[in-house]
Each structure stands twice: as C-alpha cells, then as structure tokens.
C-alpha cells in the first residue's frame, strides 16, 4: 500500500513531468498507468532530466542500471524507488 510520503512524491514527479515533457496537455492524460518510457514520453535526455530532478529534489541517488523501464516506466514505480532510497539514506 502506498504511504502518504510516497503519494506526495508521486504528485511532485507528476507535476514535473507534466510541466517539462507534456506542456499544455490535460493533466488527466498522465495517469499511474501511463507508460513513460515505452510510451515515448521519456527519451534519453528527458530521462536524464528526470533523474537530475529526482536527485536534487529528494536527495537520493539513482544508479545507472536503474535508468530503464523496470524502474522508471510508471509514476508509482518511480515514487517507490525514490521512497526506498530515502529510507535507506
């Protein structure tokens, strides 16, 4: 079950992705089920920008082997990764 902290993180990430990569889009078009990588929203540079955002906003470190669809394809997965890293810190 998603924690309150994880929910807040997911909201921040969603706001960032909407502002940076989907400007002008209806916010409802980005849901928890929207595939970010396999759906083409996050290309190579967009992925790096997202990683920099996560690391600077949440004080976590995302490893190179985690920059893929297994970890970053859906909003809840990204939020879980960030929350897990924050607990480990």
């Amino acid at each position, binding site marked *: 079950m998603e924690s309150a902290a994880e929910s807040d993180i997911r909201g921040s990430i969603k706001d960032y992705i909407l502002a940076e990569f989907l400007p002008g889009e209806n916010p409802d078009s980005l849901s928890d089920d929207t595939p970010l990588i396999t759906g083409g929203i996050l290309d190579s540079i967009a992925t790096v920008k997202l990683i920099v955002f996560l690391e600077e906003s949440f004080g976590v470190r995302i490893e190179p*082997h985690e920059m893929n*669809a297994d970890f970053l394809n859906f909003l809840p997965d990204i939020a879980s990764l960030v929350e897990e890293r924050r607990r480990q810190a």
Partner: protein
Amino acid sequence: MDFSLSAEQRRLQREIAAFARGELNADAAERDRAQLFPRELWLRCGELRLQGLMIPEIYGGGGLDAVSSTLALEALGHGCEDGGLSFSICAHLLACVVPIWKHGTEEQKRRYLPGMTKGSLIAANAMSEPASGSDAFALTTRAESRESGYVLNGTKTFCSNGPVADVIVTYAATDPAKAYHGGITAFIVPRDTDGLRTGRPFHKLGLRSSQMSEVVFENAWVPADAVLGGVGGGSSVFAQSMDWERACLGAVHIGTMQRLLDLVVTRARTRRPSGEPVGKQQGVSHPVADMKVRLEAARLLVYRAASRLDTARDISMDAAIAKLFVSEALVATAQDAVRVFGADAAIEGHAAERALRDAIASTLYSGTSEIQRNIIARWLGL
C-alpha cells in the same frame, strides 16, 4: 566564478607546454603528411601521465581534479603542433580511461588503468556504426549471453586509435527492445580477442597522425567480467564519457587557439611589406581581435564545464554549450590565421594550414554541432 590559477596550476601548465614544444613538435608536419602515429612520443607523454591526468595515483594517474586536468590539456594544445597526437591522447583518456575509472570494477581498474595511464596500453572507443550516425544508441552491434560471457557481433566505424589499440571500449545491445533505457551494455575488449579485427587506417582530412579505422566483431567471445558498468548500464557510461570528452577536448582546442593567436600576432607585428607592420591595417588587426575574443569566451566555457565535472550529477548541457562554441570558434580562428598568413598558409605543412585541416573535424566528432544544438534545445524544454 573565480578561475584564477594557483601557483601549482601555473607551474603545471608551464611544464607541459615546455615539454610539448621541446619534445613533440619535431617532424610533426612530416608525420601529418605520412599519417604516422608517433608511438615513441606517445610513451613520452605517458611518462608525464598525460594519458591519466585525472586518474587517482593509486592507479598510476596524475591525481588531478577536473579543472587542473583541463589546464594541463590546454597547455598540451598550446605547446603541441601535432594535433593528431593531442587528439589521440584525448580519445584514449576521455572516452576509454575515464569510463573505466568511473564505472569499472576494482579488478578492471587494477588490470587496465596502470598501463593506460602510462601509455603502455593504448585504448580505442568503438561506438559509432556505419548505419547509426549521430543517433549513437540506434546501434546494431549485438552481445548475446553465452557460456558465462557474451558473444559480440557487429561493425564499428570512426574508431580513433583503432589501428594501434591494445584495448577497445565498445558498446553493444544486450536487450535491443530496451535500447537506450537499459538495453545497451559497455564492454572492455582486449585486442587479442578471437573474432576482433580492425580495418585499414582511414585517410583523413586532418588529425592525420591519429589513426582511425573500423573495428569488427565476428563472434568475438568475452567473459562476463568484460562488462563495464553493469549489464544495461551502457547508456550512462557513454553519456558520462561524452560529458568529459566534450568539456576537456575543448581545452586542447583553446590551447591550439592560443598558439595560433601567438603566431598571428607575431606575424602581424613583424611583417612589413609596405614599411609598417601589417597589423596596423584593420583588415589584419580586426580578425586578430576576433581571434582573441573567441579564445577568451571559449576558455571561460571550458573552465565552467570542467569545474562542474567533479561535482554535478550531469553536465550534458554545459558540455554541449562548450563543445559547440569552442569547436566552431576553433574553425573560425584557424580560418582567420590562414587569412593573416595569406599564400604562405596555402602551402601544405604550414602551421595554419594544418591547424585548419585539424579543426574541421572538431565540429563533427563527439557529436556534430547540430547534435549539440539538439541537446541544448532539449534541455530548454524544446
């Protein structure tokens, strides 16, 4: 930002520039003409750890921070008239040594870095492919898991140092469907690997003493410990190496621009075909002034990008800005130098003629100017 140099940094620059002027320039024009890689001079550079400036001393490197390493490369570009040799050092250091330092296992670092930093091992980066062009991650080279290792198949092209390399750092698709996002893996492949061969050296416009060729993998098996940076981590390995290359190779360029400016100022002050120095004519003095402006702007961009290499998570936009501006400034500066020298510079082997031929490729390698503009635009959200 304060980029005033310490006494130690100034000493480093003086020593490297003096070394380059004293030991690397004899026969530089002849090597360029004959397209000869100067292995003996390469090893002399290794004695100064030019091939391992920023690598920790425990691995045989110079242990310098990124800015000091940049200053050292600037001094190399200033003193060394063999642009091909400087380029070979940078290709080896920035696209091969740095990735192993940053992403290698302890065993890989101890196995490769001591030889690479002193020059006894020469490395080549093999990323570009005949069909993938600037879209580097659209590669077709495959690495299939087999017998506790990987079998590589594919052809790489434009591999600087390829004909003389002992070690190849290459990239292959381990999961083609994932592509950039976890589907690319970096490998360290020794030259004597069965199934690895290099093509004949290309005949190039410039940087001719730096040899370049294809590298072909035909069922080349490598053990699992040849993986660099983890399976699927190749995109990050390559991206970080490009940050270093785009920032630090620009340092050699600003050294070259300083050398060309020195030559041109001397020419403009001493040549007197009509009694007074040609530098008194605005047709000469204004291009020289432009050379100075480009040099100082380029220097600041390179220093700024380098200053972030040791601390920032990603400097790809800073590196792209520096690479774009410095490479185009280098070409413009070399063209101005040719104009000031006039017909003399139209003769093969003249310093300005060689510098112009060497400069052209700087807007092509490490991503063309158009690719740098794409990167900058994407970071701006376009």
